């Protein structure tokens, strides 16, 4: 942070530079591809004012979108057939994109054709099945009816002298040899109708033909696959006899309306068995054809599945490359593309290497040129984080991304955030539970990072190192608060307190006395369950919160000093940092000092009284509230310093800024001529600020707001840190209640079943309320303390993040 030591990792953004790349057209595609593999360049969109259709490579993007659609279609088909694409696809040599396009087209056509044929065959098969059923049922019916009719005929004949032979068919259309005029011309139709519509079917038939039909229905036992809908439907076989053309037409229309499939039937007995065997043969043939078709389709999908992932990656990469190419502007000569982008300074060599490789691999005549541009624009912020620090950096970025090169609170957040969480969570039993939970994630880290997890699991997995730190610190603070599921232990030696007399009769009235030195590590175990536990612990925790809060706020102000020094802003050092330090420490630093002195001397001074009367009547004698000699004078001095520091913060800075502005723009009465250079489009964006306006009133009001915010904030932020006390108290009380009123109560009954029930309830309550809800609650409050009370002392957070063009990122986006 100073001249002594090297710059600290993560403290400030990596130095970034704006580079201009001039790429010859023939190597453009390969260059962008290699840069995407490198992932260290953020391209600026030079064609922002053009619509997507006006851009150079719109046609190629459409091609890629088509290929992506075909791949999605394949994926769908594979899912339906239950084939999963292999994760590690056989990587053949780099497939050419054009070849891939043709291949995908062919495969799609083939697959569509196979599907269509399969559909047709299935339909034919279902129809044949239905036909077979109809043949069987209607055949039975005719058979039964005929045997009855022949029996009747025989009866009639035995009574009379019949001329008709037994073989006379019952029903025949107009081909009767006997008197035609006396013949009733009956026709019949047969088929299948869905069972649920059968009653309505019957009714409408009856009404439409005025009852001049004879309908016979029988149920089909098993559901039949409907050819049109391809689902299994329960159907009835129907057989309807009608007379006359008109009736026939009506019946045909009604059948169509009810989606009742009709099949032809030949009443000739001899032919029936022939027809049935023919149908059976056709069925078996169709089945083999269909099966063969399915096998063929399966094989095709299998071959697709082997290469699917690779093709998918390739198409996505192509799309990304063309999107990026669209951001580059075409030079007037149309021989090269100009691009601008941000990259970290340390990556210059790597980018140059990538450009050279691309030029070499694409056999270009000219190499690409890279040059650094000077600009007043604010660069993006880039922190090189690893898997441990990235979670903490994300927490900070969620509030606001650091301005380019300002101090990054993320560095200290790595330690202070879990620490403040632990102050509110302090219980080493719960800490161990959290540690075990997060160790599960850490041990299976490699496996889980490749999988797709649910939303909540994803969040917990992403924050596993944060939770690890939180757990470790919780174990430490739990040992200090001496709470193991709210039970204290004498781990570090004997308690400092003992009874006054040997028979301990005063223990419940006047209390114990201190016989030894203070308990060496943490809160004395004797306090738990006593009547004075809460007054003691509350006083301790409130004072602790104030001390920790003042320390963190001082750290914040010191970071603002380092920011001012880095940006060489002397005004900020003398007229912001120093008065802020003086104000905060003369009031709350003094309070912290008083707390420590009171503890060290065991004085009975009332600190509320001291602080309030320091303001109300500073010259009054302190009397028994005096903690150390010279306190009156010190308080007067501190009060004066605090009063002086407020105008010190407010007044000088606006005037000094005005003077600086005037000095800077002294000789600039004339504006410069716009110089025309090669990259004409680029110039517009650079000189966005041009001639700044200095509004004195605006600057003064800004400084006024800043001052008021700091002065009032000093009080409110310090009080805000009392939430450390509040949440810690809540946690310990909840934990105590669950332990005593659930577990101990269940234990007291001396009954095994009640004990087991009690243990289950205790575990459920501990996990649900303490481990989940309290964790989230303490997490949130620790986060707030960082975002508001710590960061408003120094953080501006109005930068933007560095998003390099990288294929790794694209792979995750699409899923």
């Amino acid at each position, binding site marked *: 942070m100073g001249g002594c030591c090297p710059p*600290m990792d993560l403290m400030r953004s990596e130095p970034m530079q704006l580079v201009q790349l001039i790429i010859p057209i023939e190597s453009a595609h390969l260059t962008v591809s290699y840069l995407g593999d490198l992932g260290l360049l953020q391209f600026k969109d030079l064609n922002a004012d053009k619509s997507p259709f006006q851009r150079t490579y719109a046609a190629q993007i459409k091609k890629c979108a088509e290929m992506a659609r075909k791949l999605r279609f394949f994926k769908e088909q594979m899912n339906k057939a239950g084939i999963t694409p292999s994760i590690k696809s056989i990587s053949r040599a780099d497939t050419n994109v054009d070849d891939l396009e043709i291949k995908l087209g062919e495969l799609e056509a083939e697959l569509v054709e196979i599907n269509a044929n399969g559909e047709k065959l299935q339909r034919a098969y279902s129809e044949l099945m239905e036909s077979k059923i109809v043949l069987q049922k209607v055949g039975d019916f005719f058979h039964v009816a005929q045997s009855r009719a022949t029996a009747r005929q025989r009866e009639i004949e035995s009574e009379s002298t019949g001329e008709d032979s037994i073989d006379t068919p019952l029903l025949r259309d107009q081909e009767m040899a006997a008197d035609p005029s006396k013949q009733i011309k009956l026709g019949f139709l047969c088929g299948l109708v869905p069972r649920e519509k059968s009653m309505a079917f019957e009714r409408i038939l009856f009404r439409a033909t005025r009852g001049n039909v004879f309908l016979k229905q029988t149920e089909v036992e098993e559901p039949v696959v409907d050819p049109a809908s391809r689902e299994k439907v329960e159907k009835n076989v129907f057989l309807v006899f009608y007379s006359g053309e008109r009736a026939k037409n009506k019946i045909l229309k009604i059948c169509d309306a009810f989606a009742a499939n009709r099949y032809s039937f030949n009443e000739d007995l001899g032919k029936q068995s022939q027809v049935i065997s023919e149908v059976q043969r056709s069925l078996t043939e169709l089945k083999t054809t269909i099966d063969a078709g399915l096998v063929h389709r399966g094989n095709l999908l299998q071959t697709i599945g082997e290469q699917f992932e690779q093709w998918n990656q390739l198409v996505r990469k192509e799309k990304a490359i063309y999107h990026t190419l669209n951001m580059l502007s075409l030079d007037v000569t149309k021989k090269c593309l100009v691009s601008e982008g941000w990259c970290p300074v340390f990556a210059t060599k790597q980018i140059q290497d990538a450009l050279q490789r691309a030029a070499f691999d694409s056999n270009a005549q000219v190499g690409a040129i890279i040059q650094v541009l000077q600009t007043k624009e604010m660069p993006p912020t880039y922190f090189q984080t690893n898997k441990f620090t990235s979670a903490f950096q994300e927490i900070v970025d969620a509030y606001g991304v650091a301005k380019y090169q300002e101090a990054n609170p993320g560095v200290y957040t790595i*330690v202070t955030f879990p620490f403040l969480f632990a102050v509110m969570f302090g219980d080493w039993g719960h800490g161990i539970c959290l540690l075990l939970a997060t160790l599960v994630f850490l041990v299976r880290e490699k496996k889980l990072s490749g999988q797709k997890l649910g939303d909540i699991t994803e969040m917990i997995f992403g924050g596993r190192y944060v939770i690890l730190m939180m757990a470790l610190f919780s174990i430490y603070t739990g040992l200090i608060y001496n709470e193991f599921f709210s039970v204290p232990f004498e781990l570090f030696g004997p308690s400092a307190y003992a009874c006054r007399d040997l028979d301990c009769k005063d223990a*419940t009235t006047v209390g114990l006395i*201190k016989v030894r030195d203070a308990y*060496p590590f943490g809160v004395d175990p004797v306090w738990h369950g006593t009547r004075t536990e809460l007054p003691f612990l509350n006083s301790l925790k409130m*004072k*602790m919160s104030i001390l*920790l809060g003042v*320390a963190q706020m001082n750290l914040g102000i010191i970071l603002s000093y380092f920011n001012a020094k880095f940006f060489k802003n002397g005004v900020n050092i003398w007229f912001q940092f120093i008065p802020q330090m003086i104000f905060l420490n003369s009031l709350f630093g003094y309070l912290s000092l008083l707390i420590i002195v009171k503890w060290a001397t065991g004085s009975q001074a009332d600190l509320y009284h001291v602080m309030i009367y320091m303001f109300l009547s500073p010259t009054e004698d302190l009397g028994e509230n005096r903690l150390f000699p010279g306190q009156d004078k010190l308080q007067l001095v501190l009060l004066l310093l605090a009063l002086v520091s407020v105008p010190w913060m407010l007044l000088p800075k606006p005037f000094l800024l005005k003077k600086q502005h005037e000095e800077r723009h002294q000789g600039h009465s004339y504006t410069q001529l716009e110089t025309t250079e090669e990259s004409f489009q680029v110039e517009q964006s650079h000189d966005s600020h041009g001639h700044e306006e200095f509004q004195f009133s605006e600057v003064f009001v800004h400084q006024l707001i800043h001052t008021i915010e700091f002065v009032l904030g000093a009080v409110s932020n310090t009080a805000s840190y009392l939430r450390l006390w509040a949440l810690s108290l809540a946690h310990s009380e909840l934990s105590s209640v669950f332990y005593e009123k659930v577990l101990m109560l269940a234990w007291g009954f001396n009954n095994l079943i009640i004990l087991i029930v009690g243990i289950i309830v205790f575990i459920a309550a501990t996990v649900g309320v303490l481990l989940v809800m309290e964790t989230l609650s303490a997490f949130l409050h620790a986060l707030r303390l960082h975002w508001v009370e710590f960061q408003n002392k120094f953080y501006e957070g109005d930068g933007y993040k560095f998003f390099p063009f990288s294929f790794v990122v694209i792979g995750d986006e699409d899923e």
Partner: protein
Amino acid sequence: MGFLVTTLIFVVVGVVASLCARICCDVGPSTNLLRLTLIVTAISCCWMMWAIVYLAQMKPLIVPILSEGE
């Protein structure tokens, strides 16, 4: 064990931790500085918490009064 003695123990632990970090995995000056900062911050926070709790119990103003039925 005394305030000063335990404070010294914290300091020693901090120094040992930073030396271990430097010896076992030396990763370049800027990252080393980051690690050192983190270790110092962590030890400071832990020490502060211990010191506050210890100081508060050195000369207490109230004593534990046991509740009935202990």
